[in-house]
């Protein structure tokens, strides 16, 4: 059912639900990250490297980043819709945002999997 609500048949629900699901992913990641942080207590550089060493944690971190960027895309798109009435300026800002978010994703992927 969730998959159906994420299809083009439900354009409004799709964006709304995507934002909630991405938020949920980030919340779960933050809880696990906090637990790992408290358990491992990485307080020097090598410990931080070890913290991000497990492949599953790097994948989870990438999932977190993807969720964050999707969440930011939907949120910022709404902000631009609300506060930038000029369609030309809004178009430029939206394109700029897309470029920035893709750059962030590439950077995060390189850091985590590169």
């Amino acid at each position, binding site marked *: *059912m969730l998959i*159906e*609500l994420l299809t083009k048949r*439900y354009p409004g629900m799709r964006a709304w639900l995507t934002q909630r699901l991405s938020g949920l992913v980030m919340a779960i990641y933050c809880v696990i990250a906090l637990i790992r942080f408290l358990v491992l207590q990485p307080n020097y550089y090598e410990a931080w490297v070890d913290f991000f060493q497990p492949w599953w944690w790097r994948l989870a971190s990438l999932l977190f980043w993807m969720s964050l960027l999707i969440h930011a895309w939907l949120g910022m798109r709404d902000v631009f819709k609300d506060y930038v009435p000029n369609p030309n300026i809004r178009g430029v800002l939206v394109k700029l945002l897309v470029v920035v978010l893709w750059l962030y994703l590439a950077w995060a992927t390189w850091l985590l999997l590169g």
Partner: protein
Amino acid sequence: MKFSIYRFNPDVDQKPYMQDYDVVLEDSDQMLLDALLRIKDLDDSLSLRKSCREGVCGSDSMNINGKNGLACITKLSDLEEPVVLRPMPGLPVIRDLVVDMTQFFENYNSVKPYLVNNDPPPETERLQSPEDRAKLDGLYECILCGACTTSCPSFWWNPDKFVGPAGLMQAYRFMVDSRDQDIDERLENLEAPDRLYRCHNIMNCVEVCPKKLNPSAAIAKIKDLKFEQAREHKSQAKKQIAIKSV
């Protein structure tokens, strides 16, 4: 009592201004509307709407000390001086405290605020069980004063797209009416990205509603109905696939 009131007459004024009034009230002047009528006795150029004087018609909604409300049921003793009165935000001002509510009612009309039932009319009336009737409580009482919708930033920025809390609450009121047969159409009607989903649950609507209604909860329940609709579509699709395979 001191008042500062938004004034604008488009025939005369270049731009709006705030006018100060200091009026002596009578003991019988208990509500803000009483004071406004007292001011109007002194200055009959002041324009405002009013009708029932008891919070039923919704005519005298305005922005009172920064918060939307009805002048006729706002106690003077609850107000800080000077009482700052402005027209409801987000709608064009016709004159002084009178706003053009065309957009508000267009949005309201867009949700088809009436029963749709294609069955032949019964001899007497379409009956409801007490349980079904109870589902309308907290919804049908809306007086369409516009206080909630004009408190909503999503309406300010997208008045022609976002239906607004009053219209959405009425949409839900007919969705849950057991006599209505148009729920699928009603949900489809709100599916465009900006009609329903611009609500970000900041709950200004709940805070200002003079009838103590909860449009925000109604909006959340419309989203629940959307889930129900998707679930039904999926089970129907499964049934059709099963029939085809047989």
